């Protein structure tokens, strides 16, 4: 799977995950990520650690919940299985997905 396609799928999962809060909260997050954290929407997939930290600063203990929704959506879009775990670190799981795709070629796009 080409890198830019992987990035597009990840961005779509991020959009979908943030949309679970509603359209206006999603738009507000993207706006503030760019205005206050200098993180443009299209650059998020390549700066996931910054994105994760920004979520943590905005939402505090609520951030992992959003991370989990995004991760679930991402794995679903890639057709990968995601075991039901309590805590999901977005950065680790995206990295894990990348490795699985590269090494096993097990992706079935949905």
């Amino acid at each position, binding site marked *: 799977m080409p890198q830019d396609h992987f990035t597009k799928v990840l961005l779509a999962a991020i959009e979908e995950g943030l949309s679970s*809060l*509603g*359209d*206006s*909260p999603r*738009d*507000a*997050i993207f706006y*503030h990520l760019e*205005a*206050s954290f200098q993180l443009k929407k299209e650059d998020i997939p390549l700066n996931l650690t910054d994105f994760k930290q920004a979520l943590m*600063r*905005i*939402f505090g203990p609520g951030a992992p919940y959003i991370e989990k929704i995004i991760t679930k959506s991402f794995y679903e879009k890639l057709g990968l299985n995601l075991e039901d775990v309590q805590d999901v670190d977005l950065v680790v799981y995206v990295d894990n997905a990348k490795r699985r795709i590269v090494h096993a070629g097990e992706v079935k796009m949905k």
Partner: protein
Amino acid sequence: MSRNTRILVVDDDENIRKVVIAILEDEGYTVESVGTAKEAIEKSKRKFYNIALIDIRLPDMEGIELLTKIRDTTPRMRKVIVTGYPTLQNAVEAVNKGADAYIVKPFDVKKVLKTIEDQLNKQQAEKQYSQDRVAEFIQARVKELDMEKEVTQKGK
């Protein structure tokens, strides 16, 4: 709104379920039905329904008791009690247990559809209200973070 609106009909009378499903599907709603309170609890745990139409008399539990059971697990689902025996007492009890509205049997189709429409409008307004609060929270929190950053930079 109809196409994406899911309604759960909880009634042990199969004929009533068939009629209600036909009426609601005709309006474009997605409808599922169950005959017992237990099934209603299971289904509403697994999937989000915008509205549940709950018969006041179910074989395994009173409809009002079901309201109590699902109140905490489905806070956003609107609950409408369906009864053939409307009394002030069970109206008050249903509202106290978390019912959002009341429908009386035999059905007046226009009234049923109006009740559903009203409930969906209320649900939409609540959803918008809570989304606006989240957006406001985000704005306020980011402002706080910006101010913290400013103070730190001035202090350097």
